[in-house]
């Protein structure tokens, strides 16, 4: 049991450290930019935009709120992300971690 809570703490601490490192080195920004570009390139943005319009059209402009819209399109957005993009980002993150480990 003690082991488990230790692990919990340990995990949380790890997460925080990694995140901090990412921000400090500017990797987070770079990754964000990369992701943005990739999503536009593969058409994800346009697909989601079209979906967004459909939602507004179906519900009627007078009835839709931003929150509604976000709730509606978020799962769709997640689904639409192509696997390659996911893979590439993962790879980048792993590479980053590998680098960090050596430091």
């Amino acid at each position, binding site marked *: 049991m003690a082991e*488990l809570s230790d692990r919990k703490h340990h995990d949380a601490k790890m997460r925080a450290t990694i995140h901090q490192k990412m921000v400090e080195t500017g990797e987070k920004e770079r990754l964000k930019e990369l992701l943005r570009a990739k999503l536009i390139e593969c058409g994800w943005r346009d697909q989601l935009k079209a979906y967004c319009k*459909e939602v507004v059209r179906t519900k*009627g402009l*007078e009835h839709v709120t931003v929150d509604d819209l976000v709730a509606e399109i978020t*799962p769709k957005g997640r*689904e639409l992300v192509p696997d390659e993009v996911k893979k590439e980002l993962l790879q980048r993150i792993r590479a980053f971690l590998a680098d960090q480990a050596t430091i």
Partner: protein
Amino acid sequence: MKCPHLSKFEPYTKRQLAVFANKGKCSSCATEGPNLWLCLQMGCGNLGCGEAHSDHSSKHSNDSNHALAINLSTIRTWCNSCEMEVHPFVQSTIKNVKSVNQRDRLVKQQQQSVFRVDSPVTQAVTEFEDGKSPRGLTGFRNIGNTCYLNAAVQALSNCPPFTHFFLECGGYVKTERKPYIAKSYQKLMEDVWGRRRPSHLTPSSLVNGIKQVFPMFKGFLQQDTQEFLRCLMDRIHEELKEPIPPHLCEKGDDEDEPSGIVEKPVTSERVRARSCNSISLTEEEKLEPESEASMREKSVGSRSSSQSPPPDRRKGNKPRRSRKRTVSRAESDQVNSPTEMNNGGDDEDGDGEPMIRKPAAPDVNVFKKRPVQYRSIVSDVFDGRVLSSVVCLTCDTKSKRIEAFQDLSLPIPVGKEDLARIHASQQNMTSKGMVSCVDTTNSQGWTSWMYNVLVSWFWGPKVTLEDCLSAFFSSDELKGDNMYSCDKCKKLRNGVKYSTLTRLPEVLCIHLKRFRHESMTSYSSKISNYVKYPLEGLDIRKFLDKDCSSEVTTYDLNAVICHHGTAGGGHYTAYAMNWLDEQWYEFDDTFVTEVSESQVADAEAYVLFYKKCSDETIKMREKVVGLCDEQESLLHFYISSQWFNKFQTFAEPGPITNNDFLCKHGGVPPCKSAVVDELVTKVPQTVWECLQHRYGGGPTVTHLHVCKTCQEELDRLQKRLTEEKQTFIKFHDKFQEEVDETNTIYCISLSWFRQWEKFLNSKSTDFPEPPGPIDNRAISVSKGRHTKGAEIGQISKETWEYLYSIYGGGPEVIEQPNNVVNGTDDEEEEEDEKEEDKMKDARGDNEAKDESCSEEEINEEVVNKENQDSKL
């Protein structure tokens, strides 16, 4: 790389997931979360804690081999086997919300039923039958004294003959003219009668649209609901009107036209007789010596003279506005009263269509187009016809005139004598009682009116709606100031005028003239007397003409708009019966409350909506349903869904109108082919035969095909348009470049030219009318001096001959050849430039907005040229 485990999973709803999230505990260790994982295996329902705790979720997954689990806090799904996120609940497009099975079911349902499965009307019925409360009980937000609009729209919304068209026949609602008021109304109705059942809505797009088309409603002042209704109805009619094929036109409308009348379309008639007698002639105008046309006016208008000049029924204390604006319409080749038409000739449409008024000269015939009548859902539901007859007491000749109306503005008789007279005349009604009844509220000064109010306060006999109707239809004496100018006697005579109904509308809209306006003192007042009206069984048989075409004469009350307050300010509410549960509800802006019949009967009514009722039609509908339920027939027939909708909601739907979706060749016109499924209803043979037998009409359609002939015509037309345009450009460019001044310059009337231009630029999906023969009369009348406002374009001889060869007409108008005189080179170049600019505009796809400015220039140009010539 799709996860193969997605094929089967428990389809939890969002609500169920939320419940789990709130109350769930880990099945193994009872931890609460956040981040509990729900197993998605069919029938499992295991809850497991996540990695932050003991990760019993993964344990469960591994142990039981259930791959999918959803995180209840983030609503994201993980497949334990594939080790990736998956998306079981996301649909590929919104449209495919229903699964394949459901979709098939719907299609099958639709095949079995004649009624549109996805229409709000059918759904509303189903829901109600299932025990849910009725749809349609939605209030409207008041966005700045808009109760006049809210009350009116609620009354209309609960009028099935009108509203069900918008709910079921969406394919027939055109969106061609901004700001698409008909479409706004349709959307609003879909929201009110749709599945969501909001408690209230904000009708902003309708309000904004109305303010755009009718600037008098701009701002946030109080308005009169009946005026608003007229504006709204007129506009919707304008947007949705379709021409009636000639073989279906009513003959009555053509009676009594002076020669040279171009059109007497239903609309303009309807508009003119806005409230059947609010023809806006002031008393002074009427008494002037008449031309032929205004004499006719007199016979009709005398009624309005005996009533006040159109009273200001506005609630607010606004000065009386000229009603003439609404009387003169964009379509007004309405020549009956050129005197009154000339005022307020602004265009009413938001899109700036100029009005073309044709003079009633007898020699118009060559250039006249055949009169076209129009209909729309508005005219189908609300239009009636009144026959006004005037009898000259000297020579006994009768002069008749038919007017269309959309509502009847009834006077409210007050005071004992008038009521007694009316009651007496009611007994004589069948002989078209010659008892006159002058509307007391308007012909007397306000002191005697006050007296009458007191009198009726103390001895008030109850005024009934019938009394008001009698007052309206009873005869008027034309004498004294209001003498009638008899054709036969050719002088002013005493006469009697009376009216009868020749056609009854499906929904009779009655407007009680409660507001009175004194033109001299600008004093407004309201007659708040209670008028008793029946909730059911209003029979207007006694006001019918012997030639009336309607068979059903009984009406039931459908909706009532009430005004509370004074002429200075007040509030409108509406009572309406919901067609689903047949209960009465009060609609007071956002508040909708069920009320009793007695409450409705006691209300102070201002505008009443009575709907025709016919048991026979109800039986026919049941019969049709019965026939539909019988075995499937092999051969199916198509009926216009617009007519079928009428059959479902009107007491007298009239003959079947399959030409709604057919072209004159019997096929589907290309412009409608894409949406034809929305325009037709498929019925089995038995149903078709039954309906056609009872109502007549047609034509019979068992097979839908796109009309090839129309398509070919359209293609040919398109070719022609392109060819004409290009030829013109070619010739005209040549003309511009020519420096040779000895060539003759031809003139062409710019108004004809604009028509031709519009024709060239029209879309090829509808069949635009080519302009008639070239009409240069306006510019040929004077040589050198031009008819005031006549605009001229200058074209080369080639261009003229080309256009003339296609369109004919004339006459030829030739300018003197340009001659160069010393020192005028610059001037000439300038003129050429101006001309070129003008022609360039014409060539481009502008609607020649600049032409009116350059008109002055061109006039000057020509005058200059004239001067030059004379110099020589």
